[in-house]
């Protein structure tokens, strides 16, 4: 096997995606980028003749891990929203008092 443009592109995209995951301001965006990162990782493993692993990575490493992150994110931000509501209620309460 020789290196072709595809390999190099894939590697660069992987590194770029990882970078975006770490620095994007929005956590939701980071998680979505992470899922696509996992998919590309699976693609590179197909390229390295490891289809078993590509399947596992796509299903577990990218899919399920991504789902876990999304649900955790929802729980955290959902709470933030709840907190805001609680604060507002408290304020109202204070004013009335």
């Amino acid at each position, binding site marked *: 096997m*020789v290196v072709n443009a595809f390999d190099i592109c894939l*590697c660069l995209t992987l590194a770029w995606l*990882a970078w975006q*995951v770490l620095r994007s301001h929005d956590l939701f965006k980071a998680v979505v980028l*992470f899922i696509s990162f996992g998919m590309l990782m699976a693609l590179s493993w197909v390229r*390295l003749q490891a289809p078993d*692993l590509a399947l*596992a990575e796509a299903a577990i490493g990218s899919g399920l*891990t991504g789902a876990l992150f999304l649900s955790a994110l929802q729980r955290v931000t959902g709470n933030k929203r709840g907190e805001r509501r609680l604060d507002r209620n408290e304020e109202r309460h204070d004013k009335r008092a």
Partner: protein
Amino acid sequence: MTMLSPSLIYGLTGLLLFVMGLAGLLGCAELLRKILATNIMASGIFLFLITIAHGSGTLIDPVPQAMVLTGIVVSVSSTAVALALACHVQEAARRHDLLQKKRGTVRR
């Protein structure tokens, strides 16, 4: 650059991802981001291990591949634990803040 084989490039990418994940783990403040960073580190290591399977011979070595499969499951398990714990930590912090706030208003 004919001496470069694909496995070499992917191996280096794996190491790079490891270091980038480390940067995220040490440099980012949010817990969720730190956990994402450990996942990126793990992916980098897995990529590195898979390139080892190509090694020197023509045969592909199944042992590193089995290691990666095991590693993926271990990693998803620890990610799930970390995420659950992070949610609890943030909830605890929120409750603490609320408590402080309440105390503050009472004092006022």
